[in-house]
């Protein structure tokens, strides 16, 4: 996957964390992930699709960090993952996906984002919409680690052209 399609997600995450939490998580080494087991205890996934692209983005947090996010944003202490924590993790993913959508348009990639789904539990799976393997982007904030996963399948313009011709022929 071309890095120009990954950077919009990273930029959107940086902007979201800075604006909503006033923090700047450190991005660690990007790698390829070929299994769908989440690395965190709570994940939010958003599918997206466009004329020549489909994929999904997922944010996955350890429980401790998800609780801390909530405390920093809302100002209330919660001791276990509940509906409010699920809601805020889903909303963060929604905002990151929205920011990436805007920047992807600069690469002529027009997408529509779906509504986020949130999954909770140890070793839960994240069902990406695009192809595997997908890109794993780990971040560190203080002593906490969290991840963003991006899966994206982009059809070549040649393939699109062939498909358009086939559609016209029928």
């Amino acid at each position, binding site marked *: 996957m071309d890095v120009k399609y990954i950077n919009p997600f990273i930029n959107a995450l940086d902007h979201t964390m800075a604006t909503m939490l006033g923090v700047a998580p450190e991005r660690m080494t990007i790698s390829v992930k070929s299994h769908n087991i989440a690395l965190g205890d709570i994940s939010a996934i958003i599918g997206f699709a466009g004329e020549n692209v489909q994929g999904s983005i997922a944010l996955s947090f350890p429980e401790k960090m998800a609780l801390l996010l909530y405390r920093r944003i809302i100002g209330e202490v919660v001791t276990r993952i509940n509906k409010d924590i699920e809601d805020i993790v889903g*909303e963060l993913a929604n905002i990151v996906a*929205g920011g990436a959508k805007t920047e992807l348009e600069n690469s002529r990639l027009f997408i529509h984002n779906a509504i986020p789904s949130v999954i909770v539990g140890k070793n839960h799976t994240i069902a990406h919409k695009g192809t595997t393997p997908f890109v794993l982007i780990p971040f560190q904030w203080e002593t906490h680690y969290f991840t963003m996963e991006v899966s994206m399948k982009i059809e070549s313009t040649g393939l699109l052209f062939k498909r358009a011709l086939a559609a016209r022929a029928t």
Partner: protein
Amino acid sequence: MKILVVDDSATMRRIIMKHLNDAGYTGTVEAENGLEAISRMEGVELVLTDWNMPVMDGMSLVKELRQNPAYSRVPIVMITSIGARKEVVEALKQGVNNYIVKPFTPSILIEKIKSVIEVTA
């Protein structure tokens, strides 16, 4: 001033309502989608709505309100993660008075609300 906050995220509604309260806008009401918002419109002087919501999205809500003589002049601010130019233009064409892209700071939210209130007063 009665302000209606429409967002499917309860957390986002709380964040917005807290910022409004801190700025002196008390008496806000909330709804989690466009359909619920329509049922809560009585006496509302300003609507702040998300775009992407289940049941009835923000754009459908804007169209409904603009077609309803009772609410066609109520100012609407869209607060959404969708910041792409095409969508912003579409929202403004449908009658949205101002547009805020998430994530936002409290000052951006309040400045835009004040601006809409001034322009539409």
